[in-house]
């Protein structure tokens, strides 16, 4: 059975795809059956992923590959393939499980939306593409699925097309990620050019195996960095992070599934997948490309955490925390803790989905209110949401011992502390931990404590279909930590295929206390700062944020996301303007000269033909000079709109080529 699924791995993405196709063909009045179909497809995918998960448990370092030829031209074939190994298996489990929860949740959340059916079609489409991305054994196939999930996210962000802001956000997300993907594509081409194959594992000939890696040679760093551009785009690392917060314009389940749990993790997954390329030729685990990864990750983590403090939109806060968590994962990959990074990815998938769904339930309860300053006192109104949300928040801010996030964060800090290059990232990450605790506290205080405000007057607990996923995810977020503890680092061992054995002593480490202190500090600071949040006190209006009251300038700076969008606008505009000027200058000075030169060539012919016929030499000369002038004029008006001119220029090019060869020979 498990053997069978290993051979028919393609079924896992195929099922949601098929579901989405069928759903797309359904009329809008069959929305019930559409939802049923989507959920059923997800359940099937989950079951198959579990089947696929089983064999990887038995043998350490299990890896099942099957490749097939896509098409042949002449005698060179383009091959794709599927791959099942621990990395893929855990991702499959996470995606399908979280996905299932979110599908169920959105059946409740999206009720009454006029494009209900379309929504589920897109959602299934996305999940199919994501699963395909995870199990693909060829960088090309991965890239295809990569673009497909990009498309899905574009469609879903702009799901409420009638909102201009949504449309703009969708466009922004699409374009920004494209910038990254351009790099990815170039890297892909370069890799193909060097190693001649895009298969990861191909019985020793793949581009991640000895032979393939050996062929990369000196260009490996550039390839790695180009691939990392793609990762940066997808998982919102520092220069390209701007799209992710705006992506919150989409429906909340979408934010939960795509922009928190799965798709944005794809970048991290990509780096982990092609890690051999990054770490090729490393001396004690440091290569230039990995160093770049680390620094970018650190910058992102810290910056996003800072920005998150000053946001008012509940989802934006979570979005920025996502960005910073992704930065954390990148750091851990960069410093060599692949397993730690992946573990944090999985844990983050669970609790971030939980948080988003919680926020979704809050928004739903408050009838679409998203500004946390207008909420408050929801603790009693929505107990289930509150408790699950609290669990998610603890996990996110990394409270040790009980919550999955805590352990993975431990791991990451641990590996970062031993990074040979510098210890700066370590300290910065410690600050990041404090900040995370801080802004989460702020959010929770604003939303759930204090007394009700404008937005939360008529709030109510969400229906069963929405609370059940919350509970499930909360349980996952807690129980998941069982396999993460340093006492019994099963998942770590599973990912790095070593056997894990229980050892209680490792449970109590000094770092635990350190992080306990840090988190406590964050909580304390938060509670102290925001105890009076939302209520009028000492000449501060109720709406104004305490931090804003204390430090207006800093708050402005953070609230406006460090002016990065504006900066981009300036630079981009300036750049295009400059390039326009440049090309104009080229036109005036360079091309003109070139064209005159071509005229000179024409003159050459003139002389040649003149010497041809002796008798009518004058006529010949006149004719040729006329021709030359005509040629020169035609050429000098380089954009004459005359086809024949262009043809002539092409011919001249051919001739020039011939002359060049003449010069060579």
């Amino acid at each position, binding site marked *: 059975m498990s053997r069978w699924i290993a051979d028919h791995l393609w079924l896992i993405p195929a099922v949601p795809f098929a579901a989405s196709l069928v759903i797309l063909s359904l009329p809008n009045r069959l929305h019930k059956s559409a939802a049923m179909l989507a959920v059923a497809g997800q359940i099937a995918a989950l079951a198959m992923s579990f089947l696929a998960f089983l064999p990887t448990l038995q043998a350490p370092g299990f890896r099942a590959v099957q490749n097939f030829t896509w098409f*042949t031209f002449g005698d060179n074939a383009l091959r794709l393939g599927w791959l099942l190994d621990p990395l893929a298996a855990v991702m499959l489990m996470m995606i399908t499980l979280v996905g299932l929860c979110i599908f169920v949740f959105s059946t409740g959340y999206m009720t009454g939306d006029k494009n209900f059916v379309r929504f589920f079609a897109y959602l299934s489409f996305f999940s199919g593409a994501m699963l395909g991305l995870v199990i693909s054994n060829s960088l090309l196939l991965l890239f295809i699925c990569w673009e497909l999930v990009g498309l899905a996210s574009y469609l879903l962000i702009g799901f409420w097309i009638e909102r201009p802001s949504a449309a703009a956000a969708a466009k922004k997300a699409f374009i920004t990620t494209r910038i990254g993907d351009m790099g990815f594509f170039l890297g892909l081409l370069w890799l193909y050019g060097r190693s001649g194959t895009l298969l990861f594992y191909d019985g020793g000939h793949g581009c991640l195996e000895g032979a393939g890696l050996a062929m990369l040679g000196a260009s490996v760093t550039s390839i790695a960095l180009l691939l990392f551009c793609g990762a940066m785009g997808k998982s919102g690392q520092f220069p390209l992070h701007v799209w992710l917060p705006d992506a919150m314009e989409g429906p909340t389940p979408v934010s939960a599934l795509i922009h928190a749990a799965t798709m944005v993790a794809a970048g991290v997954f990509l780096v982990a997948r092609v890690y051999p390329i990054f770490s090729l030729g490393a001396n004690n685990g440091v290569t230039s490309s990995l160093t770049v990864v680390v620094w970018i990750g650190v910058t992102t983590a810290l910056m996003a955490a800072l920005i998150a403090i000053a946001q008012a939109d509940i989802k934006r806060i979570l979005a920025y925390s996502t960005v910073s968590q992704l930065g954390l994962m990148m750091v851990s990959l960069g410093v060599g803790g692949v397993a730690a990074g992946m573990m944090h990815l999985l844990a983050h998938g669970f609790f971030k989905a939980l948080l988003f769904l919680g926020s979704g339930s809050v928004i739903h309860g408050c009838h679409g209110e998203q500004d946390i300053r207008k909420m408050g006192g929801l603790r009693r109104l929505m107990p289930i949401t509150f408790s699950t949300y609290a669990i998610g928040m603890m996990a996110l801010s990394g409270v040790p011992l009980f919550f999955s996030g805590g352990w993975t964060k431990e791991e990451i800090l641990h590996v970062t502390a031993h990074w040979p290059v510098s210890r700066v990232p370590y300290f910065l990450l410690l600050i990041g931990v404090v900040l995370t605790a801080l802004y989460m506290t702020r959010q929770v205080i604003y939303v759930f404590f204090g007394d009700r405000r404008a937005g939360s007057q008529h709030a109510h607990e969400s229906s069963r279909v929405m609370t059940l996923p919350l509970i499930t995810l909360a349980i996952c977020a807690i129980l998941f930590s069982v396999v993460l503890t340093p006492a019994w680092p099963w998942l770590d061992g599973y990912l790095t295929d070593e056997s894990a054995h229980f050892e209680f002593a490792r449970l109590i480490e000094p770092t635990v206390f350190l992080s306990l202190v840090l988190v406590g500090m964050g909580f304390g600071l938060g509670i102290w700062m925001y105890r009076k949040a939302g209520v009028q006190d000492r000449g501060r209006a109720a709406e104004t944020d305490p931090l804003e009251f204390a430090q207006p300038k800093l708050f402005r700076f953070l609230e406006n996301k460090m002016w990065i969008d504006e900066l981009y606008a300036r630079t981009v505009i300036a750049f295009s303007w400059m390039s326009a000027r440049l090309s104009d200058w080229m036109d005036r000075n360079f091309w003109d000269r070139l064209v005159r030169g071509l005229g000179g060539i*024409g003159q050459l*012919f003139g002389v040649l033909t003149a010497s041809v016929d002796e008798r009518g030499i004058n006529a010949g000369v006149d004719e040729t000079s006329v*021709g030359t002038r005509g040629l020169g004029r035609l050429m000098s008006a380089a954009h004459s709109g005359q086809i024949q001119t262009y*043809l*002539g220029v092409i*011919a001249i090019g051919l*001739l020039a080529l011939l*002359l060049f*060869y003449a010069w060579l020979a």
Partner: protein
Amino acid sequence: MSSVAFVIIAILTLAAALAAATLQKLMHAALSFAATLVGVAALFFLLGAEFVGLVLIFVYIGAVAVLIVFTILLTRRDVGKDRGANWSGALLAIGVFGGLMWAILKTQSVAIVAPHIRSISVKRIGEALMTSYVWPLQCVGLLLTAALIGALVLVMEEKR
């Protein structure tokens, strides 16, 4: 393939080509263009690619030439007033010819005679088309369909 036949056919072909390029009346030019292609097909026969030659005649005389003459017919009011030739173009063509000639004559490796082989059989071409070239074949089919539809759309009378 006897070189006498080759030379004769080549001369005829080039003469027809020159006529097609220089004749004043468009219809004559088109017809001599057809003649040129017949010549090229004959050259293919001599070179042992009979199938390609037949295809060439079939496609060009049967389809392209008829298309061209029809176009001439449909745009008849404009036929004939061909205002002068563009001498720089002629010079360019001569130059290109000179360059190519120079390149060909200079390259020693092309001064070889053909090996003695049987002309390629239609069966082998069919097999090749259906096995290792099936992908390009599909692409060409798609392309032709697209071209067909595009041409139709282009010449369709726009409704008003």
